[in-house]
């Protein structure tokens, strides 16, 4: 088969089907914290304040800039023992504004991710990648580049990439500012 036999066109599997709306609120941070750590008897909300040094350290560890000087965190405990944290974060894509929560274990592993709210900022096309590794079990030790260990068959969307970067940054934040 010669190359000319392929008329290679781009195929964009879009989020062209929208049901029922293109903005949705899924859960509150408290609901996400309870979902991630059902065995917790205490969920302590913290507004984590990050110094300039801490923010620089997060950037150095993750390669992603920590823009916000504060981050909302829920500390889950059972019988006084730390179970992990729920960290709430926003990603602003080209077309979306997404708030999500990530659960991180004391050892720095991603235990789960839930989208809290999803908003399209304007009506442009959202391009969807076909595949991407899910994040559960990822640690900072895993190379967290999209095209390295997060499969990127059809090219990640900006928002997918932003969530990837966001999770990577939160793992660094855990190490810098939350490690016991």
């Amino acid at each position, binding site marked *: 088969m010669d190359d000319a036999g392929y008329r290679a066109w781009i195929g964009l599997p879009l989020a062209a089907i*929208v049901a029922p709306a293109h903005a949705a609120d899924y859960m509150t941070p408290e609901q996400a914290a309870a979902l991630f750590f059902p065995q917790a008897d205490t969920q302590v909300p913290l507004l984590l304040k990050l110094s300039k040094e801490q923010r620089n350290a997060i950037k150095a560890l993750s390669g992603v800039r920590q823009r916000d000087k504060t981050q909302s965190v829920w500390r889950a405990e059972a019988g006084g023992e730390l179970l992990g944290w729920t960290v709430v974060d926003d990603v602003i894509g080209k077309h979306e504004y997404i708030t999500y929560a990530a659960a991180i274990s004391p050892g720095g592993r991603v235990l789960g991710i839930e989208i809290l709210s999803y908003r399209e900022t304007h009506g442009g096309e959202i391009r969807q990648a076909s595949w991407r590794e899910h994040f559960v079990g990822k640690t900072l030790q895993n190379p967290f580049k999209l095209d390295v260990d997060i499969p990127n068959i059809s090219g990640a969307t900006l928002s997918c990439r932003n969530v990837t970067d966001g999770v990577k940054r939160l793992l660094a934040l855990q190490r810098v500012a939350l490690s016991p």
Partner: protein
Amino acid sequence: MNYIRRMQPLLGTFVEVGVAEGPAAGSSIDSAFAAVAEVHRLMSYQDPDSDLSRLNRGDGRPVPLRKLTVNVLRLARALMQASGGRFNCTVGGALERLGALPTPAAAARLDHGDADDIVIVDSCRVRLRRPVHITLDGIAKGFAVDRAVAALAARGANSGWVNAGGDLRVFGSVALPLSLREPGGFRTVGRLANRAAATSVTSGRPQPGFPGRIVSTTGTGVSRGSWTVLARHAWRADALTKVAALLPDAQRAASIRRLGGTLLEAGSTAQ
């Protein structure tokens, strides 16, 4: 009736699951996300440990696979035959050469093959007749949606939906309004009940940062446009959008119907 909805980033997109409120809603949604994640793990092109990657480097020998993977390959093979090769999941080599898929340790020696290259040895073993690479991109996202719906039903959910970035299936008593994104905004085309819908959009030029492609192996071109197909199962709707992009205009609707889908044409409605 109230519905509980959750969304997680999976399959390179945002997967939404909705079920009718009830005591088992939370655990049924957990099992639906787990089903999607399982399909991803088994059928990822990039993960060298996935069933798919092991098959692709099997060197013609029978490769032991999970039954789920064999099922998808069986469906894909049947649709390749039924569609006269317009659906073709043996194009991994071509997509590697185009840079649309990463090349594993060893590149595929053939750009593509045909249905006969997928030899189903038994319910848990498959071998490749020639050195092609299989990619399940065109079918597995829909298949994952079907698995998620089955997981919801197995946990007693009697009504709900799963939407994986536009591969959507609705079951039970809920009827979801279906809107299609078109240039200039959204167009409501009806309500979707007890069916699946999928859309692929093809444009004529490569998009920076989005190397996903549909390649033709039958000598016909890929038509530009937005292709939405309804079917009972999401895997079929998903796969038939690729077939629609490769069919000549005059045959498109009738051929999709013959293959078990309904093409949603411009100006038409879902029901």
